[in-house]
């Protein structure tokens, strides 16, 4: 921690801080499967495909937002990137060094530069440790054994996140949720990292506290040039904080573009539906939402072809083209810096989305395609038989 910022300069705009475009972190075709053991012999019977081939570059000083519903693999991706879990295959290159080639010792050293802020400000702080030890633990692990130096660094970190320097002797239960999250951030800061994974860092907080923490995270980036991988399910938070946004669905990245582009010109039908689902705080806009039917399928048995095809509204509109269910769409570049994994991304338009929304029944079915397999009469109103 160099001198803590007295009052960080106002942000001049997102683009300024990543103008040099130097790549800090490269993720290449990253795969993380969790084996499912079954039967009496606990044999390997399948895999939960949590992350299934994700490639991403993060520029220095960039905030990359990663959004998706629960079970889409965003948290697993965040942890695998930090090598808290070894990937099944694929590469993570941090500042030019392939993490898989590093020895345990080198890995520990490089981790000093990569930190994580967790979601739950209650569960992620040990209730029996005073703040000094919670924040100082990482410093000890990194070999800072002089306790005077350590205390100084902990106090600096506390001050940077807006807490009082003399809080070092207090325990987590003495703090409110927002303050605890600040302690979690101070813990990540104390090691002076370059790269921070924020795993749902503001999701557990009330709106008024959430805005304090978001401001703090952006101030810190301004002051120290941090690079964030910001994982969240809340789209308005993602829109606010990110320079670029990656949308994940069932272990795969389905869209990646600049934040403004993602929110104004989404090209993947899933992104369109996700944006349409955000409730609007303006009561005058009671829009007809594009409501997806059913739930996210199990990542242990993802659908064939495009993983979204079972819930896709565009596929329905285009008359269920075959390649959606047979061919995995490539993650292709539609425009500079805008990548989409959809065979028919060019067909996505707001008119189509609106018409799909208008056609949807008021009560959307809770289940998807597999209704046909169920030996009970399906709920579809009588109409022409499916071809």
């Amino acid at each position, binding site marked *: 921690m160099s001198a803590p910022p007295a009052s960080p300069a*106002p*942000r*001049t*705009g*997102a683009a300024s801080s990543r103008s040099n475009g130097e790549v800090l972190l490269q993720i290449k075709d990253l795969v993380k499967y969790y084996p499912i053991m079954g039967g009496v012999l606990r044999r390997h019977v399948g895999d939960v495909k949590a992350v299934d081939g994700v490639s991403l570059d993060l520029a220095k000083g960039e905030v990359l937002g990663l959004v998706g*519903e*629960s079970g889409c693999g965003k948290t697993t991706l965040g942890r695998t990137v930090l090598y808290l879990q070894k990937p099944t295959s694929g590469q993570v290159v941090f500042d030019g060094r392939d993490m898989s080639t590093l020895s345990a010792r080198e890995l520990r050293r490089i981790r000093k530069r990569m930190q994580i802020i967790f979601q739950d400000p209650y569960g992620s702080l040990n209730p029996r440790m005073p703040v000094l030890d919670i924040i100082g633990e990482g410093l000890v692990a990194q070999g800072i054994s002089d306790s005077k130096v350590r205390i100084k660094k902990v106090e600096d970190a506390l001050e940077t996140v807006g807490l009082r320097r003399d809080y070092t002797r207090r325990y987590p239960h003495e703090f*409110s*949720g*927002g*303050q605890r999250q600040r302690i979690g951030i101070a813990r990540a800061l104390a090691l002076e990292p370059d790269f921070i994974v924020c795993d749902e860092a503001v999701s557990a907080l*009330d*709106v*008024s*506290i*959430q*805005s*304090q923490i*978001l*401001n703090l995270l*952006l101030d810190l980036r301004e002051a120290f040039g941090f690079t964030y991988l910001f994982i969240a*399910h*809340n*789209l*308005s*938070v993602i*829109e*606010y*904080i990110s320079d670029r946004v990656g949308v994940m669905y069932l272990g795969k990245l389905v869209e990646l573009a600049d*934040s*403004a582009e993602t929110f104004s010109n989404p090209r993947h039908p899933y992104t369109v*539906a*996700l944006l*349409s*689902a*955000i*409730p*609007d*705080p*303006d*009561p*005058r806009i*009671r829009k007809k*939402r594009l*409501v*997806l*039917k059913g*739930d*996210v399928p199990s990542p242990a048995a993802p659908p064939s072809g495009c993983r979204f095809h079972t819930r896709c509204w565009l596929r329905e509109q285009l008359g269920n083209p075959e390649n959606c269910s047979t061919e995995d769409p490539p993650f292709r570049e539609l425009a500079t810096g805008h990548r989409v994994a959809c065979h028919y991304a060019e067909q996505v338009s707001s008119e189509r989305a609106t018409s799909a929304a208008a056609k949807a029944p*008021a*009560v*959307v*079915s*809770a*289940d998807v395609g597999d*209704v046909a397999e*169920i030996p*009970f009469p*399906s*709920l579809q109103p009588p109409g022409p038989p499916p071809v």
Partner: protein
Amino acid sequence: MTERVLGPGVPPPPDVLLEVRDLRTYFHVMDGTVPAVDGVSFSIKRGETMGLVGESGCGKSVTSLTIMRLLDIPPAEIVTGEIWFDGRDLLRLPEAEMREVRGNDITMIFQEPMTSLNPVFTIGDQISEAVVQHRHVSQKAGWDRAVEMLRLVGIPGPERRARQYPHEMSGGMRQRVMIAMALACDPKLVVADEPTTALDVTIQAQILELIKALQQESGAALLLITHDLAVVAETVQQAAVMYAGKIIETGTVEDVILRPKHPYTEGLLRSIPSHVPRGQRLNVIKGTVPNPFRMPSGCRFEPRCPYAFEPCHEFEPPLAAPPADQSQQVACWLHVPEALRPGRAAVAPAPPVPTEAFVQVESVTRQ
């Protein structure tokens, strides 16, 4: 929505389904007394939808549990208040009669669909239980009603699903089951406590659409409790904002969200990231909610309020209609005419401002 409160013991007019009057629910715990709900009054007309919004710890859930009489007494104590529902004061009903109301006339949708369903009974059993209990019909008729309800909430293959257990369903589907259960007895009032908070955004959209459609179809009144102003904006007609155990602002959703009067509501709305363009700092409500053991003596929002002025520190503002806009009610001295504000000269805390005074103001400004 919030009519002039009648005298104690007098039932509200028949078009008012639920009227809560000066409700105070305190919790007696080891460290002292927590005034979780401290003087809450509101009313809901038949078939109306109302949202109760506030951040964690503001007392919104305790309000709903008090209405349902689901709190353990002690540690809870209902210090004062009346809860008029359909012509009766629920707080005066004997438990046996309350049981007839609960689950029949008033039902509840809880936040956590996993823990609020019983894992060892089938879905169909759980839905039909209430129907058989309250409607005194046969097991068969109850089961048929359960299947019908499952179909209504968009669960495919309802006959098969009714025989399944909660663990065989996803979170979104379980929440649909909760809704089916809540509506199975044709209730007059549905209390939904954070019904979509545990769900993903696409599933939340499904469930909100479902709640809206079924509410309109069944004509039941809805009390929606949530921390999310956007959910309130999309779903209900009336809104009440709670802070530290009190309602601080009420009105139509349009009024409360588009023309907020209370500094807290305003601050809350401006903290929502989607209202703020990128690159601009988010508005922050400084500080945190007050410690319930040491509530501020005046307005409870005063320590965090950017507009706080003289009377705020010492005197608690009443919830009243501002002279300029009679449709809304707000508890803030900024919206009380100067003549009626307690002056600095007053040494003793002012007695509760008599209601008559406000009636006078009302008649002056109304055309």
